[in-house]
């Protein structure tokens, strides 16, 4: 049996089913992410594990114990909320000590433990500050420390970084991952940001419409999205029907939908001779738009009536191609992923 095992979790609100017989297994020390768009049921699943929502069906086992019907205070799970939910009337120290006080730890041990965890999050100088005296990033670190200090069986994180700016978010992602590895803590992280999920997760569960539609390691999911929803959600894949591909490339593809990563295609000038030198498929088109996405240039190409995206590394040695330019797009047949 896995460390965390959820079987057939089912939840319904009035007419809508939020969780449709969701099952998943998580091993001890793993950091997994529930990834999906708003309303897909990821937060409900997380809250059900915490005991903040009651399941209408199914079971939740953690460390061999069925916690499905226990109230939140007896589940021994930690949770970090999107809004942090720090207690405004308590200092950083008292916020972190709260869980230990509720568990009736001796005062001396509480002090030692809280001091240790405050050091771990590098906030020793802020121990007597109130939440409103801290920045967003500091508040989130306190919320994390408060959840970790009770040594929960699992730590649940409900979009904990979404309210922070990009720079702090990225540094906290790394910090969170380091803390998780150091403490070997089992964590379930909820986010709708696919980049964040890719950065921090051991495994990703992609949810849509109350179901898990794909699960696996980040690299596997990205390389092989398997279905159209995942392809579109995970990495702005080009998704074409076989007819569209046939029309653009002149090849004959098996019937179905195909996903193609924007970065596996290459752009060549229309009059270049590379077509004769390089085997593969060639698509003729015109550049309609180009946007800079940091280290990548994204071209929007129109090939006949079909629009496709091509990503190119943004390096100074290679200047950007102009809008309105006729080009040829090279594509390998191996990079066309047939979707289920």
């Amino acid at each position, binding site marked *: 049996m896995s460390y965390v095992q959820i079987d057939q979790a089912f939840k319904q609100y009035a007419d809508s089913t939020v969780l449709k017989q969701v099952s998943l297994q998580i091993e001890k020390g793993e950091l997994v992410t529930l990834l999906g768009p708003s309303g897909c049921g990821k937060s409900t699943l997380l809250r059900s594990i915490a005991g903040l929502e009651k399941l209408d069906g199914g079971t939740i086992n953690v460390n061999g114990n069925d916690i499905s019907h226990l109230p939140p205070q007896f589940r021994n799970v930690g949770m970090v909320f999107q809004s942090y939910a720090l207690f*405004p009337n308590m200092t950083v120290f008292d916020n972190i000590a709260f869980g230990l006080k509720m568990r009736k730890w001796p005062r001396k041990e509480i002090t030692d433990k809280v001091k240790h965890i405050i050091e771990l999050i590098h906030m020793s100088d802020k121990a007597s500050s109130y939440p409103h005296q801290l920045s967003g990033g500091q508040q989130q670190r306190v919320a994390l420390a408060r959840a970790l200090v009770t040594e929960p069986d699992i730590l649940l994180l409900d979009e904990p970084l979404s309210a922070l700016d990009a720079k702090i978010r990225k540094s906290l992602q790394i910090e969170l991952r380091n803390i998780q590895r150091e403490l070997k803590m089992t964590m379930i992280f909820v986010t709708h940001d696919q980049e964040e999920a890719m950065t921090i997760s051991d495994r990703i569960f992609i949810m849509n419409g109350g179901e898990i539609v794909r699960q696996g390691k980040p690299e596997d999911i990205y390389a092989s999205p398997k279905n159209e929803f995942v392809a579109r959600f995970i990495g702005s894949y080009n998704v074409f029907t076989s007819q569209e591909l046939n029309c653009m490339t002149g090849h004959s593809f098996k019937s179905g939908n195909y996903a193609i990563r924007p970065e596996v295609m290459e752009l060549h000038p229309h009059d270049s001779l590379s077509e004769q030198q390089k085997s593969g498929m060639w698509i003729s088109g015109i550049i309609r738009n180009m946007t800079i996405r940091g280290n990548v240039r994204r071209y929007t190409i129109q090939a006949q009536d079909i629009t496709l995206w091509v990503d190119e590394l943004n390096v100074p040695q290679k200047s950007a191609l102009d809008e309105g330019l006729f080009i040829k797009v090279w594509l390998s047949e191996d990079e066309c992923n047939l979707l289920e």
Partner: protein
Amino acid sequence: MKKKWVHIIIISVVFLYLFLPLAATFLYSIAKEWHNTILPVSYTFSAYENLYTDPRFLQAVGRTLLISGITLVLSVVTMATATFVVFMYLPKMERVLQALVMIPFAVPGVVAAVGLIKVYSSGPIILSGTIWILIGAYYVLVLPYMYQGIRNNLRTIDAKRLMEAAEVLGASKIKGFAFVIMPNMVTGILLSALLSFSILIGEFVLANFLIGGYYETIQVYLMRRLNENGHLASSIVITYFLTVAAISWMMLRLGRRFGKTEEIKEKIS
């Protein structure tokens, strides 16, 4: 620049309109001789001395404080609990509670007083002529202020999320309420209680109709003495004004603190 002067003039006129009568009343309350001069010829605090040393006045103040105090304690205990439970666990009942607290606005004071006397003069519960009928009526009167204040406070502190955080950290519902929710509600409750208190000490209709001379409260006492002499009447008005002003000042201070809490909450979220 021109606009600024217009503003200053308008504000000054309004200020004079509001405060001149009050200033005149104050001057009259401390005037010893004042016949055909702009300002009094001589001054005395005898009217205040008479008022504050009158055992009936002090008794009436005590009675009002007692009635208001009991009402507010009952209201805070029951409304804080009820509003919290409805807000957290029975959101569908919120409409019922909202309709209930609107009753004092729908029923005029005189109608309520006559109705209450009729109901509680006979029958299984006889409260007529006791302070409990006034406490009951006052309890209903302050319901909207207590409810709105406490509900807004719960929303401001995001009580649901705080309670969830407390529970996940191992607190029972009672401990979560006592250690996390209640301390964050104190300012809001104090603000509501002060607002209710300022309404209760200014309320005359219910006090006069329901117990009147049986149990003379400050309102009834002041109304009776207003006709005795002008200086005393003026000192009564000024005393009343200063009391309400002091409560308003406290409310403003608390309001600012409440506003800060709201800012803090915004920062946190």
